[in-house]
């Protein structure tokens, strides 16, 4: 029964995609006006009325990088808990003990990582 509903959602997403793309192409070709000779200023990036200076992809904020590293690890771990939660009634207290130990063991490095991440001068 795993495949139940999969063809329907596939057909639905395909229909949405085709109709959205078709809508935008039709509007682009039939409705929206065109400027045959746009002035060079027109296509400049928007910088609040100033003349755009420098590259668009500038240096970016890195002080939250530790959160990205933690996310890569702990987002996967949240998936494992779904398999456990689904069969919780069948597993009972004895079957759940390893998972509870797993959660507690993982919370200790999470706390230490948060301690480091909140001290941004380390990064």
């Amino acid at each position, binding site marked *: 029964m795993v495949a139940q509903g999969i063809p329907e959602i596939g057909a639905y997403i395909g229909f*949405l995609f085709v109709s*959205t793309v078709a809508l935008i192409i039709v509007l682009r070709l039939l409705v*929206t*006006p065109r400027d045959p000779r746009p002035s060079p200023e027109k296509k400049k990036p928007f910088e609040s009325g100033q003349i*755009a200076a420098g590259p668009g992809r500038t240096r970016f904020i890195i002080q939250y990088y530790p*959160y990205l590293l933690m996310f890569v690890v702990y987002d996967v771990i949240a998936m494992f808990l*779904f398999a456990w939660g689904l069969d919780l*009634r069948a597993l009972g207290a004895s079957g759940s003990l390893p998972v509870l130990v797993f959660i507690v063991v993982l919370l200790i490095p999470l706390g230490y990582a948060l301690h480091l991440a909140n001290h941004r001068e380390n990064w």
Partner: protein
Amino acid sequence: MAPVLGPLQPLVDMITSPLFLMIVLFPGLTSIAIIGALLGWLERKVTARVQLRVGPLYASPAGGILQMFADLIKLSFKELFVPENSDAFFFIMAPTTGLVIGAALVGLIPFAPGLQIANIEVGLPAFLAIITLSPSLVLLAGWSANSKFPFIGGLRALFQQTAYEIPLWLSALGVIMMAGTLNLAQIVAAQSTGWFIIPQALGAFIFLVTSVAEMERLPFDLPEAESEIMMGWQAEYMGVLFLAAQGPGFVKLYAFSALFTTIYLGGFLGPTFLPPLFWMLLKTLVIIVLIMLLRSTFPRVRLDQLLRAGWTTLLTLAIVNIGITYLLVVGLPTL
């Protein structure tokens, strides 16, 4: 049925099949477009009433209800061009795919018994997995525009995702532990003895907060903060593409409110003197107005405040919620 129409018979069969009508008409495309436009009107009207203004008024006799359709026509007739030095393919692809992803979520929601496009066994994780793509598309839109404000907005979306994603999944885990199934229709059926919002009150609160952050609405609209970074990742979009960039916000609001109703408020269950669809839409509308009032009530948080709150307060509360749910389902440990 005898094929009376000759070669056209398969086409007629397809068009009149219930699945096709569901995809095109009610839970699907047409209703999503109309509901998205009406939600845009409702949001402007609710915000205006909170701020003692009038809001849209002139576009129809009924309080400007056609305002968003007028905006839609206006935006369609605007010129469309791509800024210089931008990656045109991804610049156009990102909002278009965002619109598809937003509307794809609605296909997983059971609106009434049988009125559901795809009854997948893993409906709840599938919903959360599809929505995970949307911050990546925001980053793609910001990167491909090759402009400073969109780039900052896209990066904010990336960091914001790390703050809310894990509490969102862990609060949904509480519902799965109570129901023992991942199928949304069976989760609704499991609530016939009592809505999950009562045993899962903490989980419902976390789910609501993190889903508002996922929708990038105030107080968590960091990627598009108008007053700081000029609509962020949407700054370079115009005309129909601006519409395609704005639209998913309202469609996701509709889909997330319907999901909240489905997993916490008993979905389409209700007194039988009115049809199930009425109860489903009524509860969804209540959640939508609640989220709109949040927008009028709270100021925008800073990125570091959101990250710290997501990784400490919300994550701790989500784990506490899992502990409470464990005790509710399995019972106290017998020593």
